[in-house]
């Protein structure tokens, strides 16, 4: 099956780690890159948090992020490989990557309860931002049916992770 390149306009903005990406054009190959990068950023944060978190619920959440996002990424990479497409770097994926790096830099300077709070707070913002992008840009924009189906299939995980992160956040504030 030939991977069909299409273009779309990101109408909204993707804000992760304090930076924003405004309107731009992306195609299916770029969407694939955004998906892979978004997952990888959360895997990296989760791996780091798993080693540094002090609260057991925060560590459990971090481990879950590594497991779930690794599985989603495997499916995304498998799909891209099968469709013979190379995920194409773009401003949104670059922004996600730099947002992830600045988040890690910030987290590396924190310990104890302050670390737990900062990690979880970022997880809430990250999942909300990615979910918005999935709903407003990625699902409506994806033209390849299999890519669209993968996005639809993984969407509930982002919703559940967001709720989970909010729950851990409220628990930490008590």
């Amino acid at each position: 099956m030939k991977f069909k390149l299409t273009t779309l306009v990101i109408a909204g903005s993707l804000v992760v780690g304090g930076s924003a990406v405004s309107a731009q054009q992306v195609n299916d190959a770029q969407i694939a890159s955004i998906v892979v990068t978004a997952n990888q950023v959360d895997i990296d944060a989760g791996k780091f948090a798993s080693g540094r978190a002090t609260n057991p619920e925060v560590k459990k959440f971090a481990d879950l992020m590594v497991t779930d996002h690794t599985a989603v990424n495997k499916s995304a990479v498998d799909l891209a490989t099968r469709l013979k497409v190379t995920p194409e770097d773009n401003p949104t994926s670059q922004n996600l990557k730099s947002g992830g790096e600045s988040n890690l830099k910030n987290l590396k300077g924190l310990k104890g309860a302050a670390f737990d709070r900062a990690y979880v707070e970022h997880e809430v913002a990250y999942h909300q931002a990615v979910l918005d992008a999935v709903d407003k840009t990625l699902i409506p924009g994806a033209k390849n049916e299999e890519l669209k189906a993968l996005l639809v299939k993984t969407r509930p995980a982002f919703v559940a992770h967001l709720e989970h992160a909010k729950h851990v956040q409220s628990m930490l504030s008590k």
Partner: protein
Amino acid sequence: MTRLVKLEIAGVVIVAALALLTFSRARGAAPVKPVTHQVAIEGMQFQPEVVSLARGDSIVWTNKDLFPHTVTSKSGDFDSHEIKAGESWTYRAVKKGEFPYVCSFHPTMKAVARIR
């Protein structure tokens, strides 16, 4: 009574006895065939969310998501532990009651098994 009549009566008695035996066996044993109920784990949900079943029935949970889940009763009566993507786990109902269960990895996933 002629020999023929005697044979006829004996025949009727045998047929009636066999019929009675068959009937009583069917009623006495009354084996209710256990039912296997299917629950899909998909889109971070248990579908259906409520399953009603009788003791002796089974539930097969099949993980259709991309990542692992568990089927863990809050009461501790059953726990699948990790069910990998694409795999299934079966539980045979042994105890009456209402059993709320969750995925221990994803606390937003909740469902109930009602065993009568």
